[in-house]
């Protein structure tokens, strides 16, 4: 009954811990292994204009929904300008205002983004069918001819659009196309014209402006892209080639036509874009992503603690794992150690000195300490003063070792200062008592058991993947607790007991005897 309760509790804890961990992995994209980097783009828009010495208002379109990207950071660098952002239909606007703008003015908008394949296109309600625009002749009949031509060579909206774009952008255009092209004097105007033509066949369409992010972008302008709605979703086309789909790393800046920037009370603005990419740890990105999602789960994470505290927890989080190791080694394997969790503390100390140096230091200090402790024994000291003496001797030994090793140029051992002196002193004391009472064999067995456990603990607790897992997913401690609880009801033999009781096997089986 009690075991049943325990199993249910352990199962709940385990599932809870692992479940929460998996949730964080799948929703926030927190990585399961350490040191993964992800590409991050920093895109900057620079708005320059001349102030006229009077109040100025600037309205600048900034990205809202960015399919394929997630915002990590957003900055408005605008000096003494007041700032407000607002969302109007599909677009978001930054509204800057200043009482007096004099001389050259520069405003910056900066955004850091990372790829996020989860945030693909949003499915809004399908747009209404547009009214066919009325064209004067001869354009009207030219457009009609083109559309007629395209319709005969297409099956659906996608192929229709592609065919139209190909025809309109042909190297050797026919006279109808030539006529239309005359209406537009740049790419942007031409894409607008194409949209108008599509409206002629009542296909909902829109222009999206964006930046193609590759290597680094300097002094770039937004590129128009054409999107048509096929009743289910928006399909994107390169308006100049008819190629379907947005290019890779295409950052959608704004949707629809109309000016990119409005200025009230100052001269015309010049907007240039630049972008640079670098790499950031995936964990940072995931955290930002989660912040955007307003998740308490991540907000309440260890990452928001001060850095020094974080570093302490990076170590502390591993202690339960070391404790579980001790549980297994003591209760299932049956290794004997000095003190229950002393090996864990020694393992922590090994972090400072590295394994090999740590083992040597530990053995050296304990060996010398034991020798001196045996001498102290002849002075017939009482327990606490004796312990204090051993502690003092341990500290003196550490100083000597540090000074000597420093002279030989080994600075690794200098970190011995963090070696837990009290633990060493206690180890020496306990070892000497076991030595006296139960003999050298037992003392050395227990000493070796402690060292072995400490080494195993060190390897486990310094494992980078485990470190990362427990720090990023502290909820795994619940799962660890579940496992530890289950071991709490392990009533089977310890491995060493199989050996210990082997003499019992020499007797006859009791059943045969009676």
């Amino acid at each position, binding site marked *: 009954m009690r075991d049943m309760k325990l199993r249910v509790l352990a199962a709940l804890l385990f599932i809870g811990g692992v479940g929460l961990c998996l949730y964080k992995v799948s929703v926030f994209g927190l990585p399961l292994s350490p040191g993964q980097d992800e590409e991050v783009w920093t895109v900057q828009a620079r708005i320059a204009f001349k102030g006229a010495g009077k109040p100025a208002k600037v309205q600048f379109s900034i990205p809202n929904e960015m399919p394929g990207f997630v915002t990590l950071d957003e900055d408005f660098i605008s000096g003494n300008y007041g700032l407000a952002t607002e969302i109007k239909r599909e677009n978001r606007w930054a509204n800057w205002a200043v009482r007096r703008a004099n001389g050259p003015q520069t405003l910056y908008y900066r955004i850091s983004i990372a790829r996020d394949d989860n945030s693909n296109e949003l499915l809004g309600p399908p747009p209404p069918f547009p009214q066919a625009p009325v064209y004067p002749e001869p354009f009207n009949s030219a457009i009609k001819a083109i559309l007629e031509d395209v319709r005969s060579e297409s099956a659906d909206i996608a192929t229709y659009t592609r065919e139209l774009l190909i025809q309109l952008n042909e190297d050797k255009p026919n006279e109808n196309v030539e006529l239309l092209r005359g209406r537009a004097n740049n790419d942007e105007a031409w894409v607008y014209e194409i949209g108008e033509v599509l409206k002629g066949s009542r296909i909902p369409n829109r222009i999206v402006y964006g930046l193609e992010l590759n290597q680094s972008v300097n002094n770039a302008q937004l590129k128009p892209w054409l999107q048509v709605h096929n009743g289910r979703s928006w399909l994107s086309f390169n308006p100049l080639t008819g190629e379907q789909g947005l290019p890779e790393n295409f950052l959608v800046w704004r949707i629809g036509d109309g000016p990119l920037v409005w200025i009230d009370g100052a001269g015309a603005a010049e907007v240039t874009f630049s972008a640079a990419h670098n790499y950031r740890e995936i964990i940072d990105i995931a955290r930002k992503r989660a912040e955007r999602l307003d998740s308490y789960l991540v907000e309440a994470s260890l990452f928001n603690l001060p850095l020094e505290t974080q570093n302490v927890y990076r170590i502390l989080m591993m202690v339960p794992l070391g404790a579980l190791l001790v549980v297994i080694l003591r209760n299932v394997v049956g290794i004997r150690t000095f003190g229950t969790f002393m090996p864990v503390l020694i393992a922590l100390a090994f972090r400072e000195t590295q394994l090999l140096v740590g083992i040597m230091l530990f053995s050296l200090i304990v060996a010398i300490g034991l020798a001196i402790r045996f001498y102290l024994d002849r002075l017939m000291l009482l327990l606490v003063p004796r312990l204090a003496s051993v502690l003092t001797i341990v500290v003196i030994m550490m100083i000597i070792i540090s000074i000597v090793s420093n002279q030989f140029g080994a600075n690794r051992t200098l970190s011995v200062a963090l070696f837990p002196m009290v633990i060493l002193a206690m180890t020496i004391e306990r070892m000497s008592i076991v030595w006296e*009472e139960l003999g050298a064999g037992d003392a050395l067995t227990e000493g070796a058991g402690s060292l072995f456990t400490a080494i195993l603990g060190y390897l486990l607790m310094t494992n980078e993947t485990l470190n990362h897992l427990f720090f990023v997913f502290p909820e795994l401690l619940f799962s660890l607790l579940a496992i530890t609880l289950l071991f709490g009801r392990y009533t089977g033999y310890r491995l060493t007991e199989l050996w210990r*009781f082997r003499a019992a096997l020499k007797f006859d089986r009791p059943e045969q005897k009676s």
Partner: protein
Amino acid sequence: MISWARRLRERGIMGINQRNAEFIMPYNPRDQFPLVDDKLRTKRLAIENGIAVPELYATVEIEHDVYSMLDTLGDHSSFVIKPNNGSGGNGVLVISGRIGKHFSKSSGALINGQQVQRHTSNILSGMYSLGGVPDTAIIEYRVESDPFFDGISYQGVPDIRVIVFRGIPVASMLRLPTRDSDGKANLHQGAVGVGIDIKSGITRKGVRANDMTTVHPDTFQPIDGLQIPHWDSILTLASRCSELVGLSYIGVDIVVDRSKGPLVLELNARPGLNVQLATGRGLLLNLRTVQQMEYIPASAEARVALACEQLG
């Protein structure tokens, strides 16, 4: 390895984990432990209830008393000094006689009064107590073994460990000191463990350091097939100790004094598992039988009779 575990299981051999989880934790209330660990309290309780124990000569509780302890002892020429909260026979000093100002240990070695005092002082400082807490030293009657044991022990006093579960003796072994064990009756330190048949009190084969033996390694006297003297009263004594301390799974250490008969030396709330090695019979076999008993008689004699009747 797995087959070893299976073969041990077949013989009912109990491991430490199982002992702790299935017997000590459910059957021994935690709050009674200090009573058992405190030999002085156990002793006083035993005396009140008419259970035979070695006579208490004196206690030394504070460091200051160490100076006067030799005077307090008066003319007791043989005595035992032991820590009140000790375990496993650690810190026990046995003085078998006085020669002038010197004391002779059971091994025959002579020590002076200062060494006796220092040993006592060590006990007070907590050197031998569980957890190293300050302790009290007990000075009591030195048991002189029944002549029956003369040929089968080397110095020291052999004792009989009886495992008592729910007031019913379930297993027993005789622990014989050897030269290796330095006169101590601790199997771990090299003493010989000899299984005793609960029903008859007749010894079986012995185990020493995982080897079976039928003779004492120092005296070469046979140790099997011997009838332990006062067997019935030993079992009854052990059985009564269980109700005395309110624990259901205990080890009772009993010695047989040549003039006073069986005396309870100490109780253990976490008795070890070595008895299984001595008897070659897993504890679980009898423990399960007792566990399934619905009715446990109130009198110790009836419980002993039940054990002789039903246990193997």
